[in-house]
């Protein structure tokens, strides 16, 4: 190919972007994590992270992210499976995706009304005799709304994996006498595990860092790593501590990516993650 000469000119804007907006920000976060609130060099932030409430916060943040991912997977896998069996599956898939295009804030805001004391859920509870319950500002509502938000992103990669699955393999397993359950655990699940991994990746990492949903739906009952970072940066103005938490979040992100990076091809980019 004769494009050698053109290459440097092509690359300049993109390369500058890589340096300025990918590499530099990570280095800046790392750099700031070594400074305290008055601007002195210190390792206290790291010491703080392991000794104070931040550590329990990290654990609880992981726990919530785990719950959110678990329930998303639990509801998404059958949905994706049944979708592949429908007649116009691409159309149905599109209908699953459309809600994910609606602004995140609006969907979250809807739940303030739905879960409110005089909202329809509580009205329903009243009718069936459970009585009014405080739903808003609980960890239940936080997990529910998060699962609601993330489900389309989990369904998409699993649907793609299931859709690629050769149905003759299932027939073969059945012919050889495998039960439904064995067919699922020995054939379907292993062959779609990459889709599941992609789904986990696009749900778990954002679930660690949600801060808007915690504020609007969970009151201040649930604090995730994301909430803590936002708090440190925008409220307390302690950029050093915020950066330290961010360093750990980046670290976790890389670990999760390593664990869930099944295939080299960018199959994870099936939809919007943010």
């Amino acid at each position, binding site marked *: 190919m004769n494009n050698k000469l053109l290459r440097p000119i092509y690359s300049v804007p993109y390369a500058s972007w890589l340096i300025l907006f990918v590499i530099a920000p990570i280095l800046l976060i790392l750099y700031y994590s070594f400074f305290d609130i008055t601007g002195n060099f210190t390792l206290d932030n790291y010491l703080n992270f392991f000794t104070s409430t931040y550590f329990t916060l990290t654990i609880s943040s992981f726990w919530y992210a785990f719950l959110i991912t678990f329930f998303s997977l639990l509801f998404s896998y059958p949905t994706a499976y049944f979708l592949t069996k429908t007649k116009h599956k691409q159309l149905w898939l599109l209908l699953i995706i459309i809600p994910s295009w609606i602004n995140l804030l609006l969907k979250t805001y809807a739940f303030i009304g739905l879960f409110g004391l005089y909202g329809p859920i509580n009205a329903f509870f009243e009718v069936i005799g459970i009585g009014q319950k405080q739903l808003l500002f609980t960890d239940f509502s936080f997990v529910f709304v998060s699962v609601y938000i993330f489900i389309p992103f989990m369904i998409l990669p699993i649907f793609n994996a299931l859709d690629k699955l050769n149905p003759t393999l299932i027939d073969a397993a059945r012919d050889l006498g495998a039960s439904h359950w064995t067919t699922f655990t020995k054939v379907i699940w292993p062959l779609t595990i990459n889709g599941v991994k992609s789904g986990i990746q696009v749900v778990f990492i954002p679930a660690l860092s949600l801060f808007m949903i915690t504020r609007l739906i969970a009151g201040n009952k649930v604090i995730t790593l994301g909430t803590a970072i936002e708090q440190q940066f925008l409220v307390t103005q302690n950029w050093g501590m*915020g950066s330290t938490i961010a360093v750990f979040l980046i670290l976790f992100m890389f670990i999760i990516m390593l664990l869930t990076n099944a295939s080299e091809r960018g199959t994870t980019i099936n939809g919007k993650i943010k």
Partner: protein
Amino acid sequence: MVKLNKLPKIYLAIVFLILYAPIFYLIYYSFNSGGGMSNFESFTLEHYAAVFEDKRLIIILINTVVVALLSALISTAIGVLGALAIMFTRNKSMRKAVLSLNNILIVSPDVIIGASFLILFTMIGIKLGFISVLISHIAFSIPIVVIMVLPKLQEMSPSLIDAAVDLGASKRDVLTRVIIPFIKPGIFAGFFLALTYSLDDFAVTFFVTGNGFSTLSVEIYSMARAGITLTINALSGLIFIITVALVIGYYAISRKTKSVLVGVRK
């Protein structure tokens, strides 16, 4: 293949119901003359009127659209160049390294992007406001465009370029007459995704916006923190209609370009 029997159908119906219920719930109450999202009193369009009468809200709406269009355009241009650069990088490990760097911003949590950009802008002295928001949106949209364009480039047979060069095409011709038309669907998809990314973004914007500048998401956040106002509902009704129109438009365009492409291939 096994046909769907009743139970899966009911399951799917429930999933669809749950996915759409909050959206239609919002829209339903946007017509409520009462003040809240319970007790539907009577039908009214006053909340829609309120959206259009609120000058501040209109300005924010325009801001949001301007930032989205500009950032999508610029990030598409840079992203296409980036995809070309990656494509023509011969060194395999180098290419892999650049691709993983590219993907960092896609998987990065929004708070990290927001916080790190806030540090960056403060360091290099960019005032928080329109410019900082625009630059951030360009920055986080570029990797998406690259991801959408790259597969199209890889699909392209290198002999196409060789043939064009053999027939006397200049490098510019190769780019504008051969490569760009071929990767057009990828470019459209990238542009569209960048647009929706920008329209949808809350967390990054929240970090890098100053006091004077706001986008729709940030505004809805502060309104929602203050409590329920049906103006937000009316707004969500409008946004829902626009979103659905955009999605339909996008599918129409992608269908069209595909068929054109097939026509060219024949």
